[in-house]
């Protein structure tokens, strides 16, 4: 495997097994290892995992929220069904009242990709707790503060090819392939990829980022999963979308033809224990006059 990261690719060249390969299949040494393994009758030791290291198998995509909602409505009986019907009318409205969801999302993704500056706030929630993000960006320059569940804050500033973070005394040099793409560019790429072969549901209007926004749920199809998987890591990392097959919910809020919020939920089966991660990023002050300054 050639790692796309040049540093890791260079490191890979130092792999000692390049010069010292394993025994050839069929060789005496190869057979001996197997014979020794199969001759054992020792009791289980602490080397043996109870059920092995957690296999990484993305869980089957869970019942989509839409379906779950419908099932709940049915279970709730006639009253719930009636409520659902009212909601459905509200959401769907009369033909022509609401834009086509796919077209609306595509336009918003493209328009958002053209945005130069914004502020972002978000949350990353998993079994370890919730980390909060606050930041602002001007082009590829950015400043973010990430606060851990224990209250510890990490701060990072990128200006041009210089980056400051809490763990370094001064700026270090970065290259574009080693930093995340700006939020607008990443949002455009992710939403456009996700829309391939997707089923999009219009969930109506609600407030996002302080404005009234149209809320859409994207149910990924195989094409979308493949397209997301093909994106550069620098485009998907902000949304923790490195494992698109594990996505259980991907929702987008649009206002004034711009993406205002993206929410991604992923679920991975860690050896029988499902790990759920939810990322919510909200974009504010799109196009505002923002200048990123070096840390004082």
């Amino acid at each position, binding site marked *: 495997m050639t*790692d796309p*990261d*040049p*540093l*890791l690719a*260079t*490191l*890979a060249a*130092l*792999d*000692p*097994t390049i010069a*010292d390969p*394993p*025994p050839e*299949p069929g060789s005496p*040494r*190869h057979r001996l*290892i*197997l014979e020794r*393994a*199969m001759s054992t009758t020792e*009791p*289980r*030791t*602490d*080397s*043996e*995992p109870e*059920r*092995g*290291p*957690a*296999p*990484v198998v993305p869980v089957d995509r869970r019942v989509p929220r839409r379906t779950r909602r419908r099932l709940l409505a049915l279970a709730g009986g006639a009253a719930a069904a009636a409520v659902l019907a009212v909601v459905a009318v509200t959401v769907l409205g009369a033909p022509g009242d609401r834009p086509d969801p796919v077209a609306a999302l595509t336009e918003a993704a493209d328009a958002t990709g053209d945005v130069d500056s914004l502020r972002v706030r978000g949350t990353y929630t998993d079994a370890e707790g919730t980390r909060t993000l606050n*930041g602002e960006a001007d082009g590829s320059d950015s400043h*973010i503060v990430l606060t851990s569940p224990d209250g510890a804050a*990490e701060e*990072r500033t*990128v200006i041009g090819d210089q*980056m400051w*973070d809490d763990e*370094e005394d001064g700026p*270090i*040099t970065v290259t574009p*392939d*080693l*930093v*995340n793409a700006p939020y607008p560019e990443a949002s455009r790429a992710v939403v456009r990829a996700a829309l391939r072969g997707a089923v999009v549901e219009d969930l109506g209007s609600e407030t996002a980022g302080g404005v009234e926004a149209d809320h859409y749920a994207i149910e990924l199809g195989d094409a979308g999963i493949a397209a997301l998987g093909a994106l550069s*890591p*620098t485009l998907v*990392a*902000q949304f*923790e979308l*490195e494992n698109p097959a594990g996505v259980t919910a991907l929702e987008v809020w649009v206002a004034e033809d711009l993406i205002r919020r993206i929410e991604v939920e992923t679920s*991975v089966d*860690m*050896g029988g224990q499902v*790990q759920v*991660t939810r990322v919510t990023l909200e974009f504010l002050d799109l196009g505002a006059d923002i200048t990123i300054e070096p840390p004082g």
Partner: protein
Amino acid sequence: MEEDAFAALYRAHAAEVWRFARRRCASADEAADATADTFAVAWRRRHDLPPADEARLWLLGAARRVLANHHRSARRRAGLDERLAAVPRAPGPADPADLVDDADPLWAALASLPAHQRDLLVMRAWDGLAVTEIAALLGCTPNAASIRLTRARDRLAVALDRKGRAPSRTSPGRGPDDGGGTDDRP
């Protein structure tokens, strides 16, 4: 699982398990021992091994535990040897730090990292494991593995720079939680 099926499992995965061990051992002989012990675990557990497509990670996880036991045993032996002062100390546990060619700045940079960060980089760069697979082996979330891996990579880049050799096309780029397929960065 019968003998034939187990032998097929061995043929399919022996080389990778051996390499996994060799990267963490000082010699091919030690790697062979660890490989045999790993498959011994699998043989004893052959009736409840995971399905074929999950067996690879299961075996690597078992290898990791086997190696940890080997290293603990080596340390115990070393301690005993010290007390007895009778025989030469057993070889130390396998660790990239022990394999360092100080003349190579990248080796030296790798050796300067904490063991847990070296382990992450070895899993990624040498074992070729995906972040989700590393997470499975470490028993953490992919996000957490991503964070740790990115930190390790950045530390390596910084260490390399400080040793006077800029990495090709790269530098201590991403922030500690930043960037790439191994990224956690918001």
